[in-house]
């Protein structure tokens, strides 16, 4: 329990959260396992593993490799499918007092639309995160988030499905020439906020077997290694659209790291890979960030958001 008078609340579109610390999609499963380490309701929200329309086996193993200050993963969105998710995982989260942001992923615009229609009608969802860093099977496997048109189409379809019933957060990939233009595109298409960054495309070659280490060859790079890229992306996008709430993530390991992303412009912080290192990371980081904000004299968390953009006094 904190005794400070800090207003630690944050807002993503119409959704209000008691504090800005979230899990990152795919790094907290659907909450159950993590709840052994802290009460899930103590953080801002649980962002669930991106779920698809149908059950998914995911990719073959090896699915991961450790890299310097990071890791590579190629899980391939293994999951129960939206119907099982809404029947079993979501009610469990609600029952256990967790605010929940549901992350969806699709292989076509229609799949995203169908998913969001289902989520709209489910009770207990705080916001919808739209993971557009997936390959578009209808467009030569090009990742939605890497193409302005595809990105727009997905968000428009989701917006048509959920209307104003739920805040829509579009999750962006850093693997683009100009992330600001993609951000502008999805906001104009109806997104209420942005989540960034997803992993960077990477590869590790096993020098014993002399082949790519992952069964999928390439994988997503996460962890502290990519934090400077996350800070830069958040800074650029906040600069271009200071009113758009950003869920920041990428290599946050400590409250100081979270503070860095907040100063760059993030209104909430997702903790991903750090949770593998330390399952108590979300709750620890929440406390460390709170102490930092107090020590810097902030009385409202929201005053710190994007503070690094203010001109030097």
């Amino acid at each position, binding site marked *: 329990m904190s005794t400070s008078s800090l207003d630690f609340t944050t807002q993503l579109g119409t959704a209000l959260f008691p504090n800005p610390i979230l899990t990152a999609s795919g790094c907290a499963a659907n909450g159950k396992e993590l709840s052994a380490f*802290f009460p899930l309701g103590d953080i801002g929200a649980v962002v669930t593993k991106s779920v698809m329309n149908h059950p998914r086996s995911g990719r073959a193993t090896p699915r991961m490799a450790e890299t310097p200050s990071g890791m590579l*993963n190629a899980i391939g969105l*293994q999951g129960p499918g939206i119907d099982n998710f809404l029947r079993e995982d979501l009610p469990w989260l609600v029952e256990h007092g967790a605010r929940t942001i549901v992350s969806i992923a699709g292989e076509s615009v229609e799949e995203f639309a169908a998913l969001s229609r289902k989520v709209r009608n489910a009770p207990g969802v705080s916001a919808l995160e739209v993971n557009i860093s997936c390959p578009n099977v209808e467009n030569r496997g090009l990742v939605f988030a890497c193409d302005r048109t595809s990105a727009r189409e997905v968000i428009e379809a989701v917006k048509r499905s959920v209307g104003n019933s739920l805040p829509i957060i579009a999750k962006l990939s850093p693997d683009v020439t100009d992330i600001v233009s993609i951000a502008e595109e999805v906001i104009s298409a109806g997104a209420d906020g942005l989540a960034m960054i997803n992993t960077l495309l990477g590869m590790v070659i096993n020098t014993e077997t002399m082949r790519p280490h992952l*069964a999928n060859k390439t994988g997503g790079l996460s962890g502290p290694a990519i934090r400077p890229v996350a800070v830069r992306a958040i800074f650029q996008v906040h600069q271009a659209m200071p009113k758009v709430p950003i869920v920041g993530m990428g290599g946050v390991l400590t409250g100081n790291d979270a503070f860095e992303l907040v100063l760059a412009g993030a209104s909430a912080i997702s903790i991903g890979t750090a*949770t593998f290192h330390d*399952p108590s990371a979300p709750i620890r980081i929440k406390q460390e960030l709170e102490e930092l904000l107090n020590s810097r004299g902030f009385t409202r968390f929201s005053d710190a958001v994007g503070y690094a953009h203010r001109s030097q006094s």
Partner: protein
Amino acid sequence: MNEKTSGPVQAECEIISNRKVGAYHHLTLAAPGIAEVARPGNFVAISVGDSRTSMLLRRSFAIYQATSRGPFGGTIEIIVAPHGDGSTWIAQRVAHERLNVIGPLGNAFKIPKDPVRALLVGGGYGSAPLFPLAELLRQKNSRVEMAVGASSAERVFAPVEGKRSVHSLVIATEDGTLGSKGRVTDLFDNALTNIDIVYACGPMGMLKALSVIGTAAGVTVQCAVEESMACGIGLCMTCVLPVRDKEGVIKMLRSCVEGPIFDGAAVQWDGIGTIPPGTYGAPK
């Protein structure tokens, strides 16, 4: 309801001792909260490196012994084979340093209610968790035979105390430096006749071979697998392998939560590293 659910514990555990045993390091850790609830087959996940290390992921180790009480409160023991940078870092720690440990993790070996004739097969450091299992089986009046294999003598883990837990112990090394020369499975190619259940821990190749032998003899083989794990606690889905469930459906199960102990007959050994055709949710 907003409460911590029960489950594994995360703790800074003091190293009580670190002794070299052949090619391995035998670490004893003060682990109250973990030791009391650990069961044979469970493992722990330990973070490696200092606060500025570039190694983010925990390393997993089977629990060798877990002692609920003693001068240090509950203690656990692990057997570490220095291999890459992470395990080597752990092996180099000295008494009084602390390790960040999460445990107990995973499922445990299943113990039949009635006395059985059990064969325990360990490869390399894989024999470690079989000794407390042997103790437990003997308490249930089971007959316990153990076979231990390794590449060479220094990699055979079979401490003197351990021998007291079993009725018989045979050893095989690939280079013949201890026991028979050859693989541990050579020791009982056609010897499962007087066995009701097999418990196995060791390299995947050994587990697969045992599952084949067990299936042929109609004997259950409980296998402790070792899949690469990013989190060890069920969050990341990196540690999966294809396992057939009761309904006959192959699913990609997490070896850190649904395992590490699986029924050898259910594991799709040849499908590891693939998504076997027909797997639940497989790409069409």
